[in-house]
């Protein structure tokens, strides 16, 4: 089997085409052959009928003594004719199609059938002769003539063609299945961050493509890794000069200039912090442990409230679930920051029970995000509002999304009842 089954896609399709065409050819040959045979049998029955009719008329004018000889003279190979005063009794009920054929010979026909007789005398028939008595004949078989290419033949051809088409479709789908899986994997690149190797199966061409694809996926993953590495290194290195800058500013005389410098430094610091948060969220080894989600939200709300923002937590006093606590706090604090930065107060934090999942909802009273922009809003390093590109690096939602995915949860954007953006961070109640 393995020797006969070609390895290449071209070979498989060729084999399929050859096989299909041969089947169709053999099938149509058979139908044609049958039609030919039917026509021939029809013609033979007609000749038989002519001979018997001739015999019936031939004996009419003759005296009884000469009648048998005259009838017998009309015999020919495959047909023996006699004249007799009485018709022979049928020995056994003849088959259906034999009766149908016999009825074409003339009115008043009697028929006998003896499968055990000599081949030439199995069918025994009698027709009333002109002028009395019976023309008795024996023949090997009688068959109705074929209507050239009857309906049965057409049906069988169509059924065969459909069958072949169906089998071909199934086989082609089976052959190209690995190709479709490869296409699906290619489609996933860039959306699903973790490289998933494509199985090396199917015809040779597809196996080669899969191998090349897997190698490419590895290269892309390495490139992303390098990019992240470079970004991390830069953010790390920026911290020292920024610390020095912060210290230097502290020695300037108090005043508006110094306050502005400090605000700028604080912003740079938060950009670096976000970038590092984002990078860290991808490769975190923090342990999952039961933690109080309500306490985290209370802390975030009170910290923001202490800085004069209208942020409040509205929910139960204790909600325990397995969490990577620092990761969760980073993700949620980024959501609160995001709401304060891009939305408008009031910012509200809520916890909603959704069966197997818990939803943390962060809503604001700002303009929200249009449905069409929501996917882009979550992508890292994307700022939806170019006018505000100074404030942040566009990582807030991306950090939360990364955390959600790493925790088998998800991040959803929607419309808040307050009118602004509603961000829902869904987390499984149980680990794993």
């Amino acid at each position, binding site marked *: 089997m393995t020797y006969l089954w070609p390895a290449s896609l071209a070979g498989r399709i060729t084999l399929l085409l050859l096989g299909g065409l041969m089947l169709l050819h053999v099938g149509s040959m058979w139908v044609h052959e049958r039609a030919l045979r039917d026509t021939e049998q029809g013609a033979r029955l007609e000749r038989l009928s002519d001979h018997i009719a001739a015999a019936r008329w031939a004996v009419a004018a003759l005296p009884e003594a000469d009648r048998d000889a005259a009838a017998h003279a009309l015999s020919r190979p495959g047909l023996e004719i006699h004249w007799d005063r009485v018709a022979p009794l049928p020995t056994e009920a003849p088959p259906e199609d034999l009766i149908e054929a016999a009825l074409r010979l003339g009115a008043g026909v009697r028929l006998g059938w003896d499968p055990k007789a000599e081949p030439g005398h199995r069918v025994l028939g009698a027709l009333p002769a002109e002028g009395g008595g019976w023309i008795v004949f024996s023949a090997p078989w009688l068959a109705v003539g074929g209507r050239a290419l009857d309906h049965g033949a057409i049906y069988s051809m169509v059924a065969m063609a459909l069958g072949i088409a169906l089998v071909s479709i199934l086989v082609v789908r089976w052959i190209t299945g690995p190709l479709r899986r490869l296409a699906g994997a290619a489609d996933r690149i860039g959306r699903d961050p973790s490289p998933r190797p494509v199985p090396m199966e199917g015809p040779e061409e597809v196996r080669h493509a899969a191998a090349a694809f897997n190698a490419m996926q590895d290269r892309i993953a390495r490139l992303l890794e390098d990019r992240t590495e470079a970004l991390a290194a830069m953010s790390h290195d920026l911290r020292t000069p920024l610390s020095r800058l912060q210290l230097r500013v502290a020695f300037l005389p108090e005043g508006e200039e110094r306050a502005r410098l400090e605000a700028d430094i604080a912003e740079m610091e938060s950009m670096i912090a976000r970038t590092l948060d984002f*990078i860290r969220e991808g490769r975190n080894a923090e342990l999952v442990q039961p933690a109080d989600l309500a306490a985290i939200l209370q802390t975030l709300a009170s910290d923001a409230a*202490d800085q004069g923002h209208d942020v409040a937590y509205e929910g139960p006093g204790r909600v325990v679930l397995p969490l990577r606590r620092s990761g969760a706090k980073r993700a949620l604090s980024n959501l609160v920051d995001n709401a304060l930065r891009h939305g408008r107060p009031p910012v509200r934090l809520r916890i909603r029970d959704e069966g197997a999942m818990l939803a943390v909802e962060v809503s604001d009273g700002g303009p929200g995000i249009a449905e069409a922009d929501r996917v882009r809003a979550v992508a890292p390093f994307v700022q939806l509002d170019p006018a505000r590109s100074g404030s942040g690096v566009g990582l807030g939602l991306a950090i939360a999304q990364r955390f959600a995915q790493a925790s088998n949860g998800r991040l959803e954007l929607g419309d808040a009842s307050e009118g602004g953006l509603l961000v829902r961070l869904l987390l499984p109640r149980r680990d794993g």
Partner: protein
Amino acid sequence: MSDTAERRLLDPEAHILIVEDDGEMRNLVARLLREAAFRVSTARDGREMWDVLDNPAGQPDLLLLDVMLPGASGLDLLRRLRERSRVPVLMLTARGEEMDRVLGLELGADDYVAKPFAPRELVARVRALLRRAAPADAQPDPRSRRLAFAGWVLDTARRELTSPEGVAVDLSGAEYDLLMAFLEHPQRVLSREQLLEVAKRRVAADPFDRTVDVQVSRLRRKIEPEADSPPLIKTVRGAGYVLVADVTRG
């Protein structure tokens, strides 16, 4: 100036040793602390640090130790330092290196500040550590870092609070400081003024505001979450607040 008054309460001139390899940074931090009226020595690496520590005349009251040092890392130095001294250590860690922070605290650092930091915060942390260092000598076991009360455990190394059910409960910085103040003085009434001193380090406190009450009620909501939770912190009318539970170390 309240700053001056506070300084008088501490050692006349607390001596701080800065161990930092970046020259600019070292000079700037030294200048910052000198301007805050501390006596400052500097060391570029572990070797210079040991030189200062081996000199009996110049024993520092506090070490400011950078984690990233050439040669022996700050964490190595900390481990070796803790074999011979309990001098308070404030670690300078890089932001984003949580492992450094956790390891540093477990190896015996007393606090940490992540770079980049706000200069005012660094000075505040240094003052807080020096203030806490005085009674620290009297502690029965200086290495005990777990404070237990009414089934709750506060791990001061990791700054983690765990409920009697084993659930990690998040605390804000101000809440942590308040809880520490209560745990260091169990069953003693702490006045609003005393607690305000603690809360002030984190929140821009207005003395006419009810900041302390707000912070205490937030802390209570976390350690007494349900209506039927046993009360741990009680209000003493006109006097302040008191932690009613026993506190054990270890």
